[in-house]
């Protein structure tokens, strides 16, 4: 209200304005307080763990909350040597990458046929592949163990690679099929005219265009494999073949009394994860949430 009326009324308008302003300020402060509290609750446990990895046991028991009085690195040396973290790291990368490769390649090929062609049984095959999203992995632990034993690949990298591919195919096919379906039909027409084969079109036209969705699928696949624990627990007992989550769980179980050493082991695994996350945040977040937002 632009006041050009009697003086007292103008005052109230100004007053009201001031009240509204303070109210807004107060609300803004409250919003900040809540968000900062949430951030502390989210980040402090992680910060606490990383900080304590740099403390001596004594420093940790005297001063458990803050920065180390003196930064020591022995815990990391301890953890690296006794926990075999280097080996676990290598195994995780190898198994994770191999499974991603197979899952993305075969998933993309399936998605190509399911999205670009019409044939009988197509809907059924798609539904059959995607329903795997709902299967709780651990319901297959027992038969998987027996199956791997019968196939003679228990305690090999393959024992993990195959299930990782199988359980990532549904999300991979889902993401890639919906992306490839969005291309116009004319896309490969001229190529067909030129007499290009079906697989040639896949390789040199469709696959390159699907790159953004493939990037998302690769990230989700890899994170799933990198963090997977249940299959590794059941299918791998040879310590030389264990992946990081399993190796870490065993290491922490053996070192229950020495917290700084445990924390150093966790930090060694956590820091690369956090760096990877900060570098690829946009793709990671998009990949992990887009199913719900677009669903």
């Amino acid at each position, binding site marked *: 209200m632009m006041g050009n009326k009697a003086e007292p009324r103008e005052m109230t308008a100004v007053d009201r304005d001031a009240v509204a302003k303070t109210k807004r300020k107060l609300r803004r402060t409250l919003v900040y307080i809540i968000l900062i509290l*949430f951030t502390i609750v*989210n980040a402090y446990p992680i910060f606490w763990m990383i900080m304590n990895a740099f403390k001596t046991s004594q420093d940790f028991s005297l001063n458990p909350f803050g920065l180390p009085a003196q930064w020591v690195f022995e815990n990391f040396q301890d953890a690296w040597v006794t926990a075999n973290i280097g080996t676990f790291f290598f195994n995780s990368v190898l198994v994770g990458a191999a499974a991603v490769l197979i899952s993305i390649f075969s998933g993309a090929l*399936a998605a190509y046929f399911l999205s670009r062609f019409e044939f009988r049984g197509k809907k059924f095959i798609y539904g059959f592949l995607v329903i795997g999203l709902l299967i709780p992995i651990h319901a297959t632990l*027992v*038969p998987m163990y027996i199956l791997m034993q019968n196939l003679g690949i228990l305690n090999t990298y393959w024992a993990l690679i195959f299930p990782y591919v199988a359980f990532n195919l549904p999300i991979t096919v889902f993401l890639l099929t919906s992306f490839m379906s969005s291309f116009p039909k004319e896309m490969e027409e001229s190529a067909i005219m030129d007499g290009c084969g079906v697989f040639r079109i896949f390789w040199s036209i469709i696959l390159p265009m699907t790159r953004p969705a493939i990037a998302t699928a690769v990230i989700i696949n890899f994170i799933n494999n990198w963090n997977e624990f*249940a299959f590794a627990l059941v299918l791998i007992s040879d310590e030389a073949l264990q992946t990081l989550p399993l190796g870490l*769980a065993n290491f922490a179980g053996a070192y229950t009394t020495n917290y700084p050493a445990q924390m150093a082991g966790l930090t060694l695994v956590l820091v690369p994860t956090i760096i990877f996350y900060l570098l690829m945040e946009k793709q990671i977040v998009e990949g992990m949430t887009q199913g719900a937002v677009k669903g």
Partner: protein
Amino acid sequence: MHLLRSPWKIGLGLVLPLIIYMVFGIIPIFISFYYSFMAWDGFSAMNFVGIENYVTAFQDSTFWLSLRNNILVVLASVLGQIPIGLGLALLLNRKIKGAKFFRTIGFLPVVISTVVISITWRMIYNSEQGLLNNLLETTGLGFLQQNWLGDPDSAIFAILITIVWQFVGLYFIIFLSALQTIPKELLEAAELDGAGEWHKIVHITLPSIRNVILVAIVLCISGSLKTFDLIYVMTQGGPAHSTEVMATYMYSETFEGLSYGYGSALSILILVFSLILILITTKVMGVKRA
């Protein structure tokens, strides 16, 4: 869409994924079903026992306890993660300094491996050196100190809190991205009509993202039914089975108790329970999935 006249090419394209998916994803479930009618220790000969394993399960108080805990995990996830995530998203859905920072930290626990989270929280809850008891001590609340994971009464709640903590960020970001798709004009028009913040949320914001909320609930239920790692690492289902969920119980019965038949029956029950629950929620809420 093109009509493909050479079916063998389609077969060639689909054969690899279908074989891997069938052999290592679907067929194991049928094997499980078969073994669930057997008594078998994994080494000696199998004996067909009919539905005895299922009967045993229904009379097994630990099975019911683990089913109850599974339900608690689902409830805590749906009633914890979703409302908190939604609330935070509504708070952050405005021009605010540091919005990017809040998002980044908010999502951080979601990308960390569950094993790392479980070990960290196991240390947080430790009765002597743990962060929680230390904090209570320093803030003069020492009388609240507990052996959080060691006491059957508090252990499951300690675990539920960790589970909520781990995934709040996921729903926070899902809702935030959904909120940002609401056209600004819609809210501005309401503002011109004099609608207050609360009114806008109830009558415009929430209805606009209704479907995302429903999908998130389904996601949350199916995700929380997969809980295994966290409990296995934090408590192994103990103390005295108080934190057992069906998956951890199935694991210990099979691989520690060497009852492969019983474990298989439990696997089938997990599967049936999960699918029924997901089916019901999808039906009840009328979610349309793409």
